[in-house]
């Protein structure tokens, strides 16, 4: 399978702190690739590098064979790489519907239009209605995002991402803080999206059951480096991973 997204020896220093020391990673098109590792392993920093929020100290990000390291985040979004956030990151005083509609609008060509009401652009509204329903927020479209309970905010977070119809979805702990009974529902939704349109998903997740069940490939990060990589079975059997991550987790 074709490699859609590649991290090539990425390194990111913050002053004296090395958040990501040396990460190389190849994500195959259409795969679900998980990144696991203890807190502070550099997973979120890696996402910030891939989505252009941070520029790496050294190394490159390659998307569909093209070096996108120097591209600003909004350009990377337009190229087809979208992300969600570990800490809910929505537009608090806009309605749920408007949160999602804006994300659909962002991908269109009408953003500079000043002289027509946004509601007249049906395609974005239609897409937003569809997505709001898809992520399970039907009937809550008119609520302000800020008043949603945590679980619904996580769904909205995903809805904002889906509305822009990215090719590659960077999901940073999509189930973080969710009630455990809601987790399978969200993962089913992610699986559905993936099957529907052959998306590539790069997933950061702490829930090992989830990761082991759904991933095609897993990369284990530890102190800013790649500790191991492989299929769930290979990674699960890896001694180093047991010691550094799984062992530490269950100490």
């Amino acid at each position, binding site marked *: 399978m074709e490699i859609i997204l590649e991290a090539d020896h990425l390194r990111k220093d913050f002053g004296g702190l090395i958040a990501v020391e040396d990460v190389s990673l190849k994500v195959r098109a259409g795969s679900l690739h998980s990144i696991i590792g203890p807190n502070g392993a550099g997973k979120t920093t890696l996402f910030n590098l891939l*989505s252009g*929020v941070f520029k790496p100290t050294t190394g490159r990000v390659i998307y569909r064979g093209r070096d996108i390291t120097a591209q*600003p*985040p*909004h*350009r990377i*979004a*337009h190229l087809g790489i*979208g*992300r969600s*956030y570990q800490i809910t*990151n*929505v*537009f*608090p*005083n*806009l309605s749920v519907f*408007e949160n999602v*509609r*804006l*994300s659909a*609008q*962002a*991908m269109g060509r*009408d*953003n*500079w*239009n*000043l*002289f*027509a*009401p*946004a*509601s007249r*652009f049906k395609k974005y509204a239609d897409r937003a209605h569809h997505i709001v329903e898809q992520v399970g927020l039907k009937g809550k479209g008119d609520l302000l995002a800020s008043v949603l309970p945590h679980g619904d905010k996580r769904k909205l977070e995903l809805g*904002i991402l889906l509305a*822009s119809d990215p090719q590659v979805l960077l999901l940073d702990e999509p189930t973080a803080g969710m009630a455990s009974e809601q987790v399978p529902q969200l993962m089913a939704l992610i699986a559905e999206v993936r099957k529907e349109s052959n998306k590539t998903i790069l997933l950061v997740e702490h829930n090992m059951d989830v990761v082991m069940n759904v991933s095609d490939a897993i990369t284990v990060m530890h102190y800013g480096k790649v500790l191991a990589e492989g299929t769930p079975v290979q990674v699960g059997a890896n001694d180093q991973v047991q010691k550094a991550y799984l062992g530490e987790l269950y100490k």
Partner: protein
Amino acid sequence: MTKSIRDHLPYLLLLAALVVLPFAISFLTGEPLNKGIALFSQGLMIQVFILAVFALSYDILMGHTGILSFGHALFFGTGAYALGILVKYAHWSLPVAILAIIVIAALESFVIGILSLRVHGVYFAMVTLAFATVAFILVEATDFKQWTGAEDGLHGIPVPDAINPAIHRTEFYFLALAFAVAIFLLVKLFVDSPSGRVWAAIRENEARATSIGFNTLAFKVQATIISGIIAALAGALNAMWNLSATPQTMEVGTTINALLMTIIGGSGTIIGPMLGAGVLQLLGYFLNLWLGSIWQLVFGLIYILLVLFVPYGIVGTWRVKQLDWRAAWRARFARVSK
């Protein structure tokens, strides 16, 4: 969303009241429109209309895009001085001068926006303050006295008789009112447009707006340009009203006034800052009339009380209360029907 006449009713009533006002005052005082209180009150309201547009332009940045500026007077002053210089010294006709002011303000706000919008929050505010201070020093400088009149200001701007406020006050009243209404409608259109929605996204969460694919710097520059043009047009109308342009138009105090009007009226509500302009201007006038020079102290107290008890401004707090009342009413109705 469709709207019924009822939703527009308060606006239509306000407009009707403002149309009738000069004639009503003239009728009540028994004076003709061009004499005494009837004449004077029109002047007071003309200033309200001009400041309402200026406050509204400020709120495009503050309330709709979430940008705090301390240098907005720069655009107001630019409009005033550009009109004075172009009409008085370059002998341009008024319509051409106004078109030129639109271009000048667009360029000016583009350059300032591009240079300073890379920094955020209070840092942006300080950069804009620096730009406005430079402009203030320039118009007060004796080096350009032949054009700006330095500290005295530029006086004797020739305005065509038909709309000269000294001759045809009532005509100018309706010109200023029409201007305010037109800008109100235009800003409403902008705020509801796709671009206006992007501004709201930036106000709510700029980082996320970037991550879903908006070039937020470009949209902030767009908002700054529109805001700058409208402020300059308000400044130009102010120069026509005073037949002069003075350094006061460029002062930081002028920006602070816009900020106060926006906060008192309700930022991000469109009509709010315009009402705020009315409240501030009329309150200032009457407090000064009744209390003399201590009026500013009293106004300061009123302002503190407003911020404490009307935290979202007059219009903003009204809308929040309205939602509360509706929720309370529904809750009550639900109980009764059980």
